[in-house]
């Protein structure tokens, strides 16, 4: 039975048991287990190696980096590069490191995440439960829009923002992020709401609830997992964005990634790999923390949002 068809339980299902449910192996140190764990370990090394190198390098001093190999652990641990990356690395005349952009990134990311998810969830809800003539047509355009390289849209968006008078403002940037987050998020929400038990929807209709009533009182409370996915995807995407941040705002509001790019690309004499690595790690810290904290919820949400097409 396809799970979609018998799915009053789908939300609960996705919420609940994420434990392994696949084929049942016997629990022995069989050859099969060795293969399974062996493969996973090898893969894990491939995924962890760069992180290891980044951390190790960021804790070394420059002389040590020049001499040693990149995999050897630091002989003498120094936090100097981290301090420098955070508070004193230079871009042009500004020598205050990444600290300058951190709050800007927060100020950009929070409203962008909230707005883009608000819009996309309503879109997905309308597409799943309240189709109207043309709704699928607009959705198809939206999906095709996901494939348009951002660079192509830079110019038209400059013109649009200029015409509505939001160029260079934070709200302009928030709108841009909402626009480019819309295709994938709408797809996820639409799939999720489609998989919700329709009995709920029907019952609410009979009780006389309208579009917003059902959305706010029934759909929202049931869609925590997919919201988690959306939040993770958006935080990652927007926090890491460089292009829009630098093109559509002004220097006072440049996000952290702009400073990261500046620190990494403005070589002052010798390339300070340790500072670069520390800066890279600091910039990635926020999305990384979000991942580590919400790892389990993420898979649940993905299960709910992606499984049904």
């Amino acid at each position, binding site marked *: 039975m396809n799970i979609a068809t018998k799915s009053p339980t789908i939300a609960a299902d996705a919420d609940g048991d994420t434990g392994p449910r696949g084929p049942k192996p016997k629990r022995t140190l069989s050859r099969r287990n060795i293969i399974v764990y062996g493969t996973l370990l090898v893969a894990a090394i491939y995924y962890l190696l760069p992180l290891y190198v980044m951390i190790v390098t960021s804790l070394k001093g420059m002389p040590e980096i020049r001499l040693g190999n*990149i995999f050897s652990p630091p002989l003498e641990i120094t936090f100097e590069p981290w301090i420098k990356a955070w508070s004193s690395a230079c871009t042009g005349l500004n020598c205050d490191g990444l600290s300058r952009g951190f709050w800007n990134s927060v100020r950009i990311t929070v409203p962008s995440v909230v707005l883009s998810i608000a819009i996309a969830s309503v879109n997905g809800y309308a597409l799943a439960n309240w189709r109207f003539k043309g709704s699928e047509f607009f959705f198809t355009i939206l999906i095709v*829009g996901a494939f348009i390289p951002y*660079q192509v849209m830079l110019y038209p968006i400059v013109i649009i923002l200029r015409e509505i008078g939001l160029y260079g403002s934070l709200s302009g940037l928030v709108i841009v992020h909402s626009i480019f987050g*819309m295709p994938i998020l709408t797809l996820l929400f639409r799939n999720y709401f489609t998989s919700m038990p329709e009995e709920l929807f029907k019952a609410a209709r009979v009780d006389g609830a309208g579009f917003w009533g059902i959305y706010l009182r029934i759909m929202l409370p049931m869609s925590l997992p997919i919201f988690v996915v959306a939040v993770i995807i958006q935080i990652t995407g927007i926090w890491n964005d460089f292009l829009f941040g630098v093109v559509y705002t002004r220097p006072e509001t440049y996000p952290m990634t702009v400073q990261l790019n500046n620190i990494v690309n403005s070589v002052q004499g010798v390339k300070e790999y340790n500072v670069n690595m520390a800066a890279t790690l600091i910039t990635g810290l926020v999305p990384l923390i979000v991942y580590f904290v919400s790892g389990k919820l993420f898979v649940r949400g993905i299960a709910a949002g992606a499984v049904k097409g």
Partner: protein
Amino acid sequence: MVVRRVNARQHIDERSPMSESQTRPPSRLLRNLNAKIASIPMILTAVVVFAGGTAWTVLYSFTNSKLLPRLNFVGLDQYTRLWAAPRWLVSIENLLIYGVLSLIFSLVVGFVLAALLDQKIRFENTFRTIFLYPFALSFIVTGLVWQWLLNPEHGIQSVVRGLGWTSFSFDPLYNSEIVIYGILIAALWQGTGLVMCLMLAGLRGIDEDIWKAARVDGIPMWRTYLFIVIPMMRPVFVTTLVIIASGIVKVYDLVVAQTSGGPGIASEVPAKYVYDYMFFAQNLGQGFAASTMMLLSVVIVIVPWAYLEFGRRRRA
């Protein structure tokens, strides 16, 4: 399985006609009014930004706009020049190699990892987090780290040589022939975690009874995966494909951070051609022509598929 899918569809489809028939407001336009109002941002985005922006781009690709867009039409000149440019041809070739390989490898690696994690193993959470965390890092960061790892003077090559194998050579970023694979290694590192998550979620959605039945019938596990489980996961594959493929077409930051298109022009990609010609060469017309070609290929592949995938539900 096919029958079941169709059932599922019909089941879902009953919903919207019903909701419409219940209210039946006086005018067609007013029917479902709240939904339409709520969809205004989506409609605006689709029509004004995506469709409008695209039309604008196509229109100006027939002009000789330089730094600023101007309606001074020159016919197909920009396209003739585009297809004569060696760099554009290299870009297309790279995108094809990169696209096909990254599609195959992401799906295969992602699926295999997900299948392994689905074997009731211990430390599943740890492994999953390890595979997923690179997705939290931007392409700029990914590019830098791998540039560092693949650098022959500091990275893997020098370490292996240091172990005594002095003729060992591994410098994909400095060898025109294989540089695109160097980029692929980094791209897979960053992106397969998400694919794995999607696949894992799909596998978790497969009913336990399927496995039981397969085992009772004595079907070997690989066959169960290949012929029963994967076809059942079609929706997951669709979502995954949209996510991977849209990433492939847009690949830009990674190349810039890792190689800036080098050595020479060996790792150039179309998105970078567009950007460079629009802004660096200050030849908007040429950049627009290149982006129109990109859009055209996307449209040829995606639109029929998207229409089938997302449009047919309504008519079912």
